[in-house]
């Protein structure tokens, strides 16, 4: 019962964050891109909750708009890799053979490099931009899902209900859609949820290095990077987006942990939770 309450609270917080990201433009008290040098570098106060930056832009509005970019691109990234990786994993697990061997070696290669290094290289080739940062991270992150999906598919492939479906004349596609996917989707969703926080930090990291979102687009990582030189004199310019990242990551991580405990404490092993 206690778990249920916890899950409800965490779900509400997650919905709230996503809601804020989607309707960011309506929540901002000021125009996040409007420059007004007469109010540059104001300390946080009632007028400007998080102060203003070098161009007099309201930090609170920029943090909220930045959340739109950071959070929506993270969710898009996780959705892409979860769907793509799972599809590949199911195909490998269900059909096996040569395809399986080749795809698993490719995923070995992708897993080989430490994530950010490879993403750096991909982002460097494609150039900056938040879409390219998402592509770069997607290229290196899908194998995790194909590993999980493949393992789960293998574990249920020979079970009697699949045999029964085969005898009843279902073709492979029908079996995968009706029996395989519903049975393996739980752990995949948990893995994806636990991944959101990490991915958010990686996107922000790429942006911080100048390989993600480009100025003037407000994005938490690039906002922190741009404000770096002002750390000494106007720390709020750097710390507000940092705290925003931290809070969002905490909420998504807590949600992931709660969801994992609620779904099945045994089913998802520790190794996927990082």
């Amino acid at each position: 019962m206690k778990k249920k309450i916890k899950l409800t609270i965490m779900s509400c917080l997650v919905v709230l964050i996503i809601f804020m990201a989607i309707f960011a433009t309506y929540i901002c008290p000021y125009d996040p891109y409007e420059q007004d040098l007469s109010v540059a570098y104001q300390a946080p106060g009632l007028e400007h909750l998080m102060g203003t930056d070098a161009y007099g832009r309201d930090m609170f509005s920029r943090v909220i708009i930045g959340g739109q970019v950071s959070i929506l691109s993270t969710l898009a990234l996780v959705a892409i890799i979860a769907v793509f990786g799972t599809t590949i994993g199911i195909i490998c697990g269900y059909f096996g053979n040569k395809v399986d061997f080749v795809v698993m070696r490719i995923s070995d290669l992708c897993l080989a490099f430490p994530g950010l290094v490879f993403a750096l290289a991909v982002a460097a080739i494609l150039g900056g931009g938040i879409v390219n940062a998402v592509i770069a991270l997607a290229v290196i992150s899908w194998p995790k899902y194909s590993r999980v999906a493949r393992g789960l598919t293998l574990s249920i492939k020979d079970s009697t209900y699949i045999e029964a479906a085969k005898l009843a004349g279902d073709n492979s596609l029908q079996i995968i859609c009706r029996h395989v996917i519903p049975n393996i989707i739980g752990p995949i969703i948990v893995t994806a949820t636990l991944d959101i926080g990490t991915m958010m930090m990686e996107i922000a990291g790429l942006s911080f290095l100048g390989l993600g979102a480009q100025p003037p687009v407000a994005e938490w990582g690039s906002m922190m990077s741009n404000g770096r030189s002002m750390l000494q004199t106007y720390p709020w310019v750097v710390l507000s987006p940092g705290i925003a990242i931290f809070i969002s990551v905490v909420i998504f991580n807590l949600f992931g942990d709660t969801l994992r405990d609620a779904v099945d404490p045994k089913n998802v092993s520790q190794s996927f939770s990082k």
Partner: protein
Amino acid sequence: MVYIIKRVLQLIPILFAITFLSFAMMRLAGSDVVEQKMLNTGQVISETQLEMAREQLGLNSPFLVQYFRWLGNLLHGDMGVSYVSGKDVFETFVSKLPATILLTATSIALTVIISIPLGVISAVYQNKFIDYVIRFFSFIGNSLPNFFVSLVLMYFLGIKLGWLPIISKDINSTSIIMPTLTLAIAMSSKYLRQVRTTVLDELSKDYIVGAKARGVKFSITLMGSVLRATLVTIITLLALSIGSLLGGTAIVESIFMWDGVGKMAVDAINMRDYPIIQAYVMWMAIIYVLVNLITDLSYRFLDPRIRLGDRES
């Protein structure tokens, strides 16, 4: 022995694939390196000059020819010259290594010092107050991006308290503290959880009860048997971390102006300095492959129950 040879032979196609990929990636990048190089010098240049430069760099030959020429040179230890500085890539690379190796060593050491005792304490006092406190901090540490940690450390230790230099002008005992702390905070929060889980697993085994029944002091069981059993986990984690740390932590090195390979890679990427990027990717590949090999082999010495070769499946 057969297993070791087999493992080493398996590395060859992997390394080959990685060289090809890293070469292809950079060549297909789309942005014109010659223009980039000329732009870096800030001069106005004509199309003929561009063409000459392309010819000189061998960029007009077919792709595969370029690849094999590059691979051949690589085998002779010749990685070309940097497009930006004009210096030898291999020498540039080697000159950046000591800083990264030093940072790797200090942050691994600090991580071990933090995460093993805390992980063990957390497991021994499971669900007691101290366990909750440790887990709370590990959760917080896991949710902080390292660039945020760096900046917060800079703000408090460097600016507010003025204890440490903000930017490392050179490598010395004070400039290494903040980058080390940043890396160790992130790694320890991750690893003390793993140590805790492993110790909990171990503590629930029968031999612990057996030892207790024989009157062996708990601290002796803990220090002797339990710690030894958790070594496999710890070694795996450390190996993985050493691998990624030796690659230079791009973000932390850039923030603290730590002159290692990570910062070199970021700079090279921004300048589209392909030879340096390629050298970097090759370095990462070699580290990864070696670390994996050593980890697999070290299991055997730590836990004879693991039969090498079985791990393949």
